[in-house]
């Protein structure tokens, strides 16, 4: 007969989750609001671009990915009230004006001959920066107090990695000349500079700060 009264630790030996995290409730809500804004802008753009790209496979991928990011926006939207933000629109904002400028520049290409630019903006710039910020948040927040956000980010990151891979492969399949490489790089550079100015999708500190401040020498 099993011994039902024998005490066990509340955390199993292999469960090393720690209580402290990098973000308090307020900071988490702020970041989640920025994430939601970015997801919103991304799914809107992907939806809008569907009609403008002549390549059938790209058209269908954009339509599919459009929903992925809408779902991410919905998940973040549902998380905000749980973080004491009942007026979710209040925090659904860009991290700063540079981020607005980035989205404006990313969504600018429209012509049917600009599929490379459209894809580069999303899959070589924005999504890698999202993956970075979400990973930083996922690894830095408390896996106990903020587990709902961790769970959301885990689902989202799975989508992001898959979408990034598909998008990158579409780009590679579309680039057939030196001139097209140049086009891709020029657009990427332009957008990377805007993203640098923004400090990442959630503003400065999107992926933390790896540098150490040295004390002044005597």
């Amino acid at each position: 007969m099993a011994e039902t009264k024998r005490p066990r630790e509340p955390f199993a030996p292999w469960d090393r989750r720690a209580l402290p995290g990098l973000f308090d409730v307020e900071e988490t809500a702020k970041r989640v609001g920025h994430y939601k804004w970015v997801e919103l802008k991304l799914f809107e753009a992907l939806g809008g671009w569907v009609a403008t790209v002549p390549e059938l496979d790209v058209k269908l991928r954009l339509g599919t990915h459009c929903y992925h990011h809408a779902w991410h926006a919905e998940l973040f939207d549902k998380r905000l009230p749980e973080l004491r933000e009942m007026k979710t629109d209040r925090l659904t904002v860009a991290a700063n004006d540079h981020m607005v400028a980035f989205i404006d520049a990313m969504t600018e290409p429209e012509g049917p001959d600009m599929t490379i630019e459209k894809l580069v903006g999303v899959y070589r710039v924005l999504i890698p920066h999202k993956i970075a910020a979400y990973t930083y948040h996922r690894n830095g927040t408390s896996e106990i107090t903020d587990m709902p956000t961790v769970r959301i980010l885990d689902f989202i990151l799975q989508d992001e990695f898959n979408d990034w891979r598909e998008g990158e492969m579409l780009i590679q399949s579309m680039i057939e000349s030196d001139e097209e490489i140049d086009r891709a790089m020029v657009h990427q550079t332009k957008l990377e500079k805007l993203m640098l100015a923004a400090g990442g999708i959630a503003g400065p500190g999107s992926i933390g700060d790896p540098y150490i401040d040295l004390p002044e020498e005597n």
Partner: protein
Amino acid sequence: MRKIFPAEELARDARFIRQTNEQRLGDPRGARVAGGNSGDRLAKLTPELANGPDRARALMHGIFVGEIQALEGAGRTCWDFEVGEDVPLALKLDMARQCWDEARHCEISVSLAEHMGTELGEFAENGLLYEAACNPDPVLRLTGVNRALEGLAIDVFNTMKEFGNLAGDPVLEFCEDWMLADEVTHVKMGSDWLRRLTENDKERLDKALEFQKIVDRLFSFNGFRGEDDDSPIQLTRRFRELAGFSDDEIDEIADMSRDARVEAAS
């Protein structure tokens, strides 16, 4: 990227040839419809017809390009309107979901085209469906697309599903059944949003329903979609009810089709 993207600029590769509405309606032989021609009294689409398989092929290609345009239309609704100012976030989320569904329908249609021996772009494309998706009022756009056109899609998919069943074609029947399930969901989305967005705005509701009728009429060439036994495309009462259509609304569409048939015959 602009708001409201014109139908004539829809991006396609070299395989696809667009037929303008003027060309289509100016065809003295009658406009092409349901894999046949509205100038003739088309028989109900069944495999027993000598040209049944070829009509099904042509109709399937029409469905395919319709799915592309439905994808483009839903995508544009995600882009053209601002959350809060124009539409609630939930409406856009529904449209994004519809994008994914329509993208899958395109994939299914491409596979079915291959199954039926149709090359992509083998038949001319008409942009009428997307044009209905350009209405600047989101309520009218959703009503025209999700209730009128997706409603028609319910009827078409059910007819094609029956065609597959009668022909003993398990691939066609299976695919159409899945697409039909999605279309009922899309029509229900349209019905729900129409109700929610016009709850306190009778004038807008009336305008939206009038626009729906206009779109329904545009796609009722000679009443090819109806409840008569010999209607080429059968009006599907059961699924329309599931999608939020009232009996009166379904009766109205049936009457519209019957009138169009009588008018065409006279």
